[in-house]
């Protein structure tokens, strides 16, 4: 039962975990690992990105619990909360994907007990932190201030969550950090977390396992800009400066890291400047998807490979620099990794939305979908994860295509399955009268045919397996390559 | 597209395609085993009655091919015949006898149906004549009337010396047989019987054709109570007869070949006829719920005939009527005569009230019909209102009843022939004598019978 403990730090962490969840939902294989345990570390409890990532993770988890482990398929990899991996004896760890900061709804000044400090200490604090830093409430995160974050996050190690994590850490488990280098929480949190886990003098249990565990990280460097607002606490113009400062720190202070992935893009369209809270809900971005891919890439290496040759550094380059990235703009490796699975997921979600409820077909009858779709909670959960306007697959795919560096591998506007993969329409052989490529009829026929070959008694499991097989076949038979 | 499922289906579809046209038609129909059995039993039951039907006559059928070997024509030229063949006078009038017999002799002489024709005059015994001589005698009259020879003696001679297979003797005479005395009259029949039986011919048959002719000369009555001869007779026509004597088969064929259209009356003794072609007609004046009971009735093969009536429902309110068509063309005209048929056709059956309600001949309409009725010359309509619970034989029989004319043409006393009219002395007795030889009186065979089966519908 090898696990991957995935620390998503800050808003970027949430968004990358969202993309990874989508990849796993699409059936992307995560090798050397049975279970992913995402831990989102973000003091901003109302962060919109985080909330919808959590909702997505919960939905995924529900579905996985129903499906269980399989050889392949949609939702193949288990995603579990920290408390879910083991029975917590004293109940101090909540069953959630979010690290519990215990409601630090105070200002940084209060957090430091500034007023109770000695004059010398006050002087030091004044030297390190601006007045703004001291007055800002911690509930919305560290707002691009690593100096604040590093203080607060250093205390994480003493939390029950981390202790629980260490108690349940086993040989073979891996750790991966996702953070942005230019923000507040991530930039400060990642090196701190790493240092504490790898500390030779740590008081945590399983210290040796922790020290030896293959550890990776993806650091997202600036890829967006924020609209400049005179009074805003976050100024994207400082991103580069902050990045440079952080990188120079990373250069010497990332002990125990086996692989580090760097991702960056030239900022183009500025995001609306929302320093935090529920308003910070950014559209899913290609960079996050690529960051999620780096996790998959990291898992592909064996522990031995990771340990030899010191830290491995990875960067990413598109095959073609295009403002609207399609599958053929990706390098072969990434394309092979996700093109087919994402296409399958797209076919599934489109078919689910357009036809599933109204189909009159043997597979539909045999799965008793008329009843199940209306009444069984798990089928509603599937509906959520696919079509929720908050966190659903449809929304995610749509958002990916709405950035200036858009990831638009699919034409989401069309109803023609043959034309859904951008730049790669399904070839219809007109010589064969019956070959209409991929259409409703094709899927129906394939669903009916395949349904007979699946001997799964549970109709939900069967439905998922059925659609995975059918979309797999559609891809192999009709799309072949992208 | 995947082809494999379709190719798997192909054989099945082909089988269906083959099945469709392969079903029942008239030609290849095979009935269920059960049906066959049932029908056979019925056939067997029905078959008992017609077992002795004339069809089972191998000699008749084999000899029926080809012409007769010989015909011997005997013309009596005794004095009593002179009135039929008077010497040609200035008035050049001749009798109907002359016209008829001359024509007949000519017909015989010309006929291809007989290989050898010989002609005889009968005086005290037969004298060989050529056709020309005999023809001349008929036309120009008897030049030297011979003394009369008795009928039994002539018959004896013909049967004893001229009887041979595939040959007939034709005797033309007035057949006035005068017994030696009045006391001998009751033995006329016996005399004739003995004469014909002298040679012990088992298959002897006699066809009698009765004609009348004007008569110009002396009439010699058999009963000589009034006068030995009546000169310058007669004011009435006098009958004369053509007898065809020989083996039954030869007589039948000679009748058919040369006497088919014979005018006058006729009677046949000992002649056996094959059953006439016949069939029930299910769409000709039929009424009520019945159909052909034959197991292969549905084939409706061309020329097929049917003799089984299967009745599904019958009662006094819903009578069943069916028509039997018969082709009587091969029979002598006597047996084609509607009057004779109406009088003599009988229907025999068991457990039924079936009866003949009508006998009628072919009309232009029936002959022009496209139905099977076109093949038949005569029709017998039978009505049933009651029947047994199982198959029963039903037979249409034409009994061998002596025609009425024989009695009518018979007189017990011809001494006053002008008053008596065209009659012959003791004709009935002569015929009785013939009948005694040619028919088994205990078990008189019918002329023909058509066996039918009347059965409830299954």
């Amino acid at each position: 039962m090898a696990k991957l403990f995935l620390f998503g730090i800050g808003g970027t962490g949430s968004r990358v975990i969202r993309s990874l969840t989508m990849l796993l939902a699409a059936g992307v294989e995560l090798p050397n690992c049975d279970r992913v345990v995402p831990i989102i570390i973000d003091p901003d409890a109302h962060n919109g990105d985080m909330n919808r990532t959590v909702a997505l993770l919960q939905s995924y988890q529900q579905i996985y619990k129903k499906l269980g482990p399989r050889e392949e398929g949609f939702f193949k990899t288990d995603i579990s909360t920290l408390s879910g991996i083991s029975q917590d004896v004293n109940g101090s760890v909540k069953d959630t994907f979010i690290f519990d900061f215990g409601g630090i709804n105070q200002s940084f000044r209060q957090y430091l007990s500034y007023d109770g400090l000695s004059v010398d200490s006050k002087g030091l604090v004044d030297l390190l932190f601006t007045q703004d830093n001291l007055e800002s409430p911690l509930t919305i995160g560290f707002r691009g201030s690593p100096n604040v974050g590093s203080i607060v996050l250093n205390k994480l190690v003493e939390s029950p969550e981390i202790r629980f994590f260490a108690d349940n850490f086993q040989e073979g488990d891996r750790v991966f950090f996702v953070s942005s280098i230019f923000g507040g929480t991530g930039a400060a949190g990642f090196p701190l977390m790493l240092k504490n886990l790898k500390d030779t003098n740590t008081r945590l249990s399983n210290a040796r396992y922790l020290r030896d565990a293959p550890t990776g990280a993806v650091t997202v460097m600036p890829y967006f800009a924020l609209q400049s607002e005179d009074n805003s606490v976050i100024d994207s113009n400082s991103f580069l400066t902050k990045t440079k400062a952080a990188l120079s720190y990373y250069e010497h202070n990332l002990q125990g890291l086996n692989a580090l992935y760097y991702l960056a893009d030239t900022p183009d369209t500025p995001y609306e400047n929302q320093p935090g809270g529920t308003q910070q809900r950014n559209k899913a971005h290609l960079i996050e998807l690529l960051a999620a891919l780096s996790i998959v890439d990291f898992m592909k290496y064996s522990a031995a490979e990771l340990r030899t040759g010191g830290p491995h550094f990875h960067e990413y380059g598109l095959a073609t620099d295009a403002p609207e990235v399609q599958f053929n703009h990706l390098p072969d490796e990434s394309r092979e990794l996700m093109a087919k699975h994402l296409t399958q997921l797209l076919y599934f979600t489109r078919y689910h939305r357009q036809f599933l409820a109204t189909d009159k077909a043997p597979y539909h009858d045999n799965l008793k979908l008329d009843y199940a779709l209306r009444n069984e909670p798990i089928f509603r959960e599937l509906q959520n994860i696919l079509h929720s306007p908050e966190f659903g697959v449809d929304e995610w795919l749509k958002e990916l295509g709405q950035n200036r560096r858009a990831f638009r591998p699919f034409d989401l506007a069309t109803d023609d399955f043959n034309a859904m993969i951008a730049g790669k329409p399904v070839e219809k052989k007109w010589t064969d009268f019956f070959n209409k490529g991929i259409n409703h009829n094709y899927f129906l026929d394939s669903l009916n045919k395949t349904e007979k070959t699946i001997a799964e008694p549970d109709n939900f499991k069967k439905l998922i397996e059925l659609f995975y097989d059918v979309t797999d076949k559609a891809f192999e038979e009709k799309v072949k390559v992208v | 597209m995947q082809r494999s499922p379709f190719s798997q289906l192909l054989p099945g579809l082909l089988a269906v395609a083959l099945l469709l046209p392969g079903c029942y038609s008239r030609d290849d129909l095979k009935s269920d085993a059960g049906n066959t059995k049932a029908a056979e039993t019925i056939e067997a039951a029905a078959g008992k009655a017609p077992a002795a039907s004339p069809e089972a006559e191998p000699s008749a059928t084999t000899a029926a091919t080809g012409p007769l070997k010989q015909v011997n024509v005997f013309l009596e030229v005794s004095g009593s015949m002179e009135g039929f063949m008077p010497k040609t006078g200035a008035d050049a009038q001749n009798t109907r006898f002359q016209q008829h017999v001359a024509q007949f002799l000519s017909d015989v002489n010309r006929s291809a149906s007989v290989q050898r024709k010989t002609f005889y005059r009968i005086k005290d015994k037969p004298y060989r004549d050529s056709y020309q001589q005999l023809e001349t005698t008929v036309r120009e009259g008897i030049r030297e009337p011979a003394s009369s020879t008795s009928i039994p003696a002539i018959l004896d001679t013909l049967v004893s010396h001229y009887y041979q297979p595939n040959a007939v003797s034709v005797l033309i005479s007035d057949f006035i047989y005068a017994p030696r005395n009045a006391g001998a009259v009751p033995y006329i029949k016996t005399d004739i019987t003995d004469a014909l039986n002298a040679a012990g011919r088992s298959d002897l048959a006699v066809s009698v054709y009765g004609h009348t002719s004007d008569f110009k000369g002396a009439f010699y009555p058999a009963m000589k109570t009034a006068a030995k001869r009546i000169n310058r007779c007669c004011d009435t026509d006098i009958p004369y007869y053509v007898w065809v004597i020989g083996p039954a088969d030869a007589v039948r064929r000679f009748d058919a070949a040369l006497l088919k259209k014979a005018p006058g009356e006729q009677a046949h003794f000992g002649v056996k006829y094959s059953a006439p072609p016949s069939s029930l007609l299910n769409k000709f004046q039929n009424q009520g719920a019945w159909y052909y009971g034959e197991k292969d009735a549905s084939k409706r093969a061309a020329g097929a005939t049917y003799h089984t009536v299967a009745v599904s429902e019958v009662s006094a309110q819903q009578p069943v009527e069916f028509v039997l068509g018969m082709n009587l063309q091969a029979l002598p005209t006597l047996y084609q005569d509607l009057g004779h048929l109406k009088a003599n056709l009988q229907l025999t059956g068991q457990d039924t009230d079936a009866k003949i309600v009508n006998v009628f001949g072919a009309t232009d309409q029936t002959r022009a019909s496209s139905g099977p009725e076109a093949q038949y010359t005569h029709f017998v309509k039978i009505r049933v209102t009651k029947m047994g619970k199982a198959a029963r034989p039903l037979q249409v029989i034409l009994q061998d009843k002596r025609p009425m004319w024989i009695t009518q043409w018979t007189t017990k006393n011809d001494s006053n022939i002008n008053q008596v009219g065209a009659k012959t002395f003791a004709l009935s007795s002569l015929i009785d004598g013939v009948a005694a030889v040619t028919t088994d009186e205990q078990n008189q065979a019918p002329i023909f019978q058509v066996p039918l089966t009347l059965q409830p519908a299954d």
Partner: protein
Amino acid sequence: MQSFFRFLYELIGTPQPPADTPVYRQIVFPNIGLLNLGISLALVLIFYYVINKAMGVATFNKLRHWTLFLVLNALIAFIVVVWQAKAQQVTDHSYIYWLATLNAVYGLLFYFLFSVILRKGSTNASTTPF
């Protein structure tokens, strides 16, 4: 077999006119019966195995499509009787049309029975009509 078809078709009474009874019993009944069975089977095979399996058509499996074939089958069954009556030269009689109607009803029945038996083997219509 003849007796079976005879039983089947004489439920509405004996053939009319009675003179054609042997033709009906020995030719027409078995013919229309076998044809009806064969055509029903063929249509069921076409619907379930040709269209909804071999040809891969998946949208022609609704109740209305099935009903279309059902009605088509009944129509053919009706026509078959009229045609057979003509072919076998039976006497024209209103009975022919009663028989045709009965055959159409049997066509519906046969089609339904074959459907129930054979539908499971179909890909896209294995749950049609229900």
